[in-house]
């Protein structure tokens, strides 16, 4: 979106309060959604709950194609559609709800840096494991991704997505990495997050911010998703303060959720 379009959107967003019928769209939960999309979607849900904004979750098979940027999840609020956590945070800020207002400039710089770290390492590692690791891609990712469609469309879409993701991995230099190196990167990222969290309840003071929502989304999904090997979950589990952080956020904000 160009800068002018973003400015207009902020203006329009600020005009109305948050409606009751806001909806969030993601792929089908049981059959279709993959690890990385589930993590992003959970992060957005956590953020909206932390802000106290009600939102209904709808699962649609074509959610990825409905999204304005092609990424999951996206929210439909009033007459606007916004996708991805970054733009959604700005959108809610325009409506007057923000979690990071109390931070000073240096803290805000740190928060943004850590969010980029999660995106750069955790999200990329999730994508790598899903699509570049042959066993996971064959047994889990491709069947799940194409489950709503019939032959031959399912084969075409699955391989197209895999090709796109592999191109991206090559472009950023992850194409030559082995699975072991990727697990090692995940460990380092978790170690950095664990050290930043320390013994605090949330990453910044006593109040959660969008960084907490993002970290919760990714870690909780990694811990609760079954893959071909449990190595990824084991790496995350070795950091006890991250585990208790996830449990705390789940109990505080998702206690009425049955899964």
């Amino acid at each position, binding site marked *: 979106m160009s*800068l*002018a379009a973003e400015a207009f959107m902020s203006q329009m967003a600020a005009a109305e309060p948050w409606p009751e019928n806001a909806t969030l769209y993601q792929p089908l939960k049981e059959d279709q959604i993959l690890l990385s999309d589930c993590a992003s979607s959970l992060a957005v849900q956590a953020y909206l709950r932390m802000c106290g904004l009600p939102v209904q979750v709808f699962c649609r098979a074509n959610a990825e194609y409905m999204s304005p940027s*092609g990424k999951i999840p996206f929210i439909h609020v009033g007459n606007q559609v916004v996708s991805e956590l970054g733009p959604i945070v700005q959108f809610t800020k325009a409506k007057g709800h923000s979690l990071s207002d109390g931070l000073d400039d240096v803290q*805000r710089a740190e928060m943004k840096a850590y969010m980029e770290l999660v995106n*750069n390492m955790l999200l990329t590692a999730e994508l790598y494991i899903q699509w570049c690791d042959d066993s996971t891609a064959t047994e889990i990712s491709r069947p799940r991704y194409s489950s709503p469609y019939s032959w031959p469309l399912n084969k075409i879409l699955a391989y197209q997505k895999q090709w796109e993701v592999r191109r991206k991995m090559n472009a950023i230099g992850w194409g030559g990495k082995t699975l072991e190196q990727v697990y090692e990167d995940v460990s380092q990222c978790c170690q950095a997050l664990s*050290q930043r969290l320390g013994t605090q309840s949330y990453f910044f003071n006593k109040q959660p911010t969008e960084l907490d929502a993002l970290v919760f989304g990714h870690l909780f999904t990694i811990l609760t998703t079954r893959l071909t090997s449990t190595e990824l979950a084991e790496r995350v589990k070795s950091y006890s303060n991250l585990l208790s952080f996830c449990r705390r956020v789940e109990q505080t904000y998702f206690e009425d959720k049955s899964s």
Partner: protein
Amino acid sequence: MNQNMAAAMELRCWGGDWGLPSVHTESLIVLAYTKFSGAKVAVSPIDWTWKTITVTVPELVCGDTAVQEPTQILNFLRKQRFNADYELTARQGADTMAYIALLEEKLQPALLHTFWVDAENYSNLTRPWFASRSPFPLNFFVPGRLASGALSRILLTTGEAPLHRISEVEGKIYSDAKECLNLLSYRLGTANFFFGNSPTSLDAFAFGFLAPLHKASLPSSPLQSHLRQLDNLTGFCDNILAVYFSSDHFCKIAAQAGPLPPVQETMDANLQKLTQLVNKESNLIEKMDDNLRSSPQHKPHRPEPKPSLSSAKSSTPA
């Protein structure tokens, strides 16, 4: 034996110009880190050799092993006990990783765009420079290859390639980059380096990304003008050049101002913030104005007044 191994390390990188030991971001990162950690490395620039097309730069060769990519090279140097991050706490180490991720995600696409995709900069500065440093006939291929690599990297990481073209992501990557520069500036504050008084790997990464943008004579770059307003970041680059690279023969102009004193906080912090805010707003207003004028829904002004039927020749109505 470690001493012997250390003496045998050779770094292949692009050569220097514009007052910098190297014009290539990744090579600069590694060079800066070797200076900070005290590693003795023989620098062999690949200019004017066939290595410009055969070798991935930067590359550290030590005995039989060759290591590529700045992060891998830094890890290798740390294992050889050249560690500039020795005194960092665990929390600071975590911050280092986070800020490096921020630089790579938010600043690097815009830098690649400024140097390799922006037509004016590419044809006036980048391509002639790289072409002049490559032997015949590689000078026809090397810049183009690097440019297409940069473009595909930008499109694949910041825009879904089939949906967006480069013109649509341009606005976003530049606004992200300006925000990233502001964040770096807040984090650096009035200090000489990001963590205390001695430089670390984060300083090496920041220097590698910022120095080419600061020193290159780019014909058109709003990002460079934005960086020039952030005094503490430009002072940071100049300081490193003066202290660590002034004796290098690569650096022709670095010492022109003499050794610089540590960055003094001359501008009021509030004034600095206000300047950044005003620039952001004025850029936004400019863009909105441009977009409005070029919008197809905007009714064009009448090109010329309709020729009046009666006033052509007659001078007196009566």
